[in-house]
């Protein structure tokens, strides 16, 4: 099996437009989650992390969703120094709702229904950057970003492509916000992942990208995607497993593929949405995996839940953790309160770190996990 190296990474979020700027903001304890009064998205005030509207000005040939993706891909491609038009290079996109905002803004016609498809955005972006291979598009609820990384790793393992740009994004429109509100799943204040008093999610807007390759970069720090696994709860379409066994299956596969034991995992970047059920389920799966001793963080208190970008965004921040030997604390967490005990990281930890586990779960009962290692 080939090693799959991380050549470059990017985050475009309200906290900054590079991975470095985002990591520094998190180290300084900044969050972009706040109360918004925006009648175009919700009749009532809501707590979320939203891009500055000014970001979207001046790119009329791209939709807002495409603009944020384009900015993220452009930075990652430049940093990696790759040529998207190389026949050995491909693009994988990840999103849950893509251009859904357009459906809210214009009369719903057959043309519009065809136009909002992710294939249209993927085509536009592939053309803009000059990718010659057809883009692969993953749309698998909130594991989309993590699954996109796993898919890229498998393609590179198999020798199908040498280099893959993996990018994901979602924006928070009235459609998405009202849906989560209808579930009574949205917290009115900053979310509290893994906390005894957690009461729901914050939603967030972002794009994130990693460039993966069979060839390592020339820099000193070499980061590899060690392994990945995907599973399904087969239990409920909008609620997680009661046992956590299925997320554990994904974790177990990822760790086995990476060849890492529980003691090798220096920290866990959890999904940590701050709903009662998700965080309990994750605490069970982490214990089943025997990794409950490792510090666990959730980044939802900084960015909210960025849906199809989340797996990518949280992986990028965690890679920064590997490179800087700093584990980011869980903003919003105060009092332990999960059904099984886990070691929630609540203050910035500075220590040598070699490997992390990233988990994700979503509607439809899906779970995914990856292990990322510094070599």
């Amino acid at each position: 099996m080939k090693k799959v190296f991380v050549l470059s990474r990017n985050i475009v979020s309200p906290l900054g437009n590079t991975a470095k700027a985002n990591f520094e903001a998190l180290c300084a304890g900044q969050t972009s989650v706040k109360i918004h009064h925006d009648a175009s998205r919700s009749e009532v005030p809501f707590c979320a992390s939203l891009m500055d509207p000014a970001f979207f000005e001046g790119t009329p040939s791209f939709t807002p969703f495409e603009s944020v993706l384009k900015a993220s891909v452009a930075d990652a491609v430049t940093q990696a120094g790759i040529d998207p038009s190389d026949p050995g290079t491909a693009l994988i996109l990840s999103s849950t709702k893509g251009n859904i905002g357009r459906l809210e803004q214009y009369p719903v016609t057959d043309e519009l229904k065809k136009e909002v498809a992710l294939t249209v955005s993927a085509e536009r972006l592939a053309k803009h950057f000059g990718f010659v291979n057809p883009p692969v598009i993953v749309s698998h609820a909130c594991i989309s970003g993590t699954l996109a990384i796993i898919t890229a790793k498998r393609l590179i393992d198999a020798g199908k492509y040498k280099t893959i740009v993996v990018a994901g994004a979602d924006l928070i429109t009235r459609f998405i916000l009202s849906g989560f509100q209808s579930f009574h799943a949205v917290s009115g204040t900053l979310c509290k992942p893994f906390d005894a008093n957690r009461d729901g999610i914050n939603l967030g807007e972002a794009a994130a990208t990693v460039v993966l390759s069979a060839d390592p970069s020339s820099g000193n720090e070499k980061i590899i995607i060690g392994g990945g696994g995907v599973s399904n709860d087969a239990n409920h379409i909008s609620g997680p497993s009661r046992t956590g066994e299925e997320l554990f299956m994904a974790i177990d596969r990822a760790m086995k593929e990476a060849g890492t034991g529980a003691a090798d995992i220096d920290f866990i970047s959890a999904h940590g949405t701050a709903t009662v059920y998700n965080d309990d389920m994750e605490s069970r799966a982490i214990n089943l995996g025997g990794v409950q001793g490792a510090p666990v963080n959730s980044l939802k208190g900084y960015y909210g839940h960025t849906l199809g970008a989340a797996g990518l965004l949280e992986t990028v921040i965690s890679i920064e953790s590997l490179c800087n030997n700093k584990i980011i604390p869980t903003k919003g967490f105060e009092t332990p309160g999960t059904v099984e005990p886990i070691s929630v990281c609540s203050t910035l930890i500075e220590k040598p770190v070699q490997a992390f586990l990233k988990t994700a779960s979503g509607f439809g009962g899906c779970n995914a996990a990856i292990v990322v290692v510094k070599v």
Partner: protein
Amino acid sequence: MEQGRIYITSAVVLRNGVMVKDGSVIFRAPEKGAAFLQAAYEHLGIDYPRFYKMDLLSKAGTVAVDMLLRVHLGAWAYRPEETGMVLSNRNASIDADVQYLEASKAYPSPALFVYTLPNIVIGEISIRYKFKGENAFFISETFDADWIHWYVTDLVQRGLLKACICGWIDVMNEQPDGCLFLVEQAPAATGQLFTAENLWDIYNKDYEM
């Protein structure tokens, strides 16, 4: 590790008012959309009350997979984690999106919102049959047999799956368009070999004579 070859042990096509299983038309009805799926559900004697709560994408998937799995006559030989689902379409959950959007102007309904993700059809089928293995939903402009063949073969060769339901399932303007395959790693030849060419042949055949 000894590798059994991978076979397409069953295939179901669902389009233009016709339902085809393993090359034979098993149901034909003049109704469109929801009414067609309802008629198919009744005609095929499916008994699964959750069907009535589903959006059209999940209904189409439920009816097609029910037929697909009848080759096994209730005896499923695989553990939950050995069975996976890899589906694809062009329009994600567009019909459910429009339905939720219209309804949400009066009252945002969680029962409608949950179907506004394409992978919910995988979740529904996984719940019914307790499939817990690898699952993925991809979006492509048209059915991409090469991609589905590569992705599923890779999962089987990695030892992650022994059986997989894969293929295409889309709904646009209430019209279901599906072509699903049951593929299994079998020790002896059963059905057609799992190749991209055979997937294309089954998908492209004109069943409306």
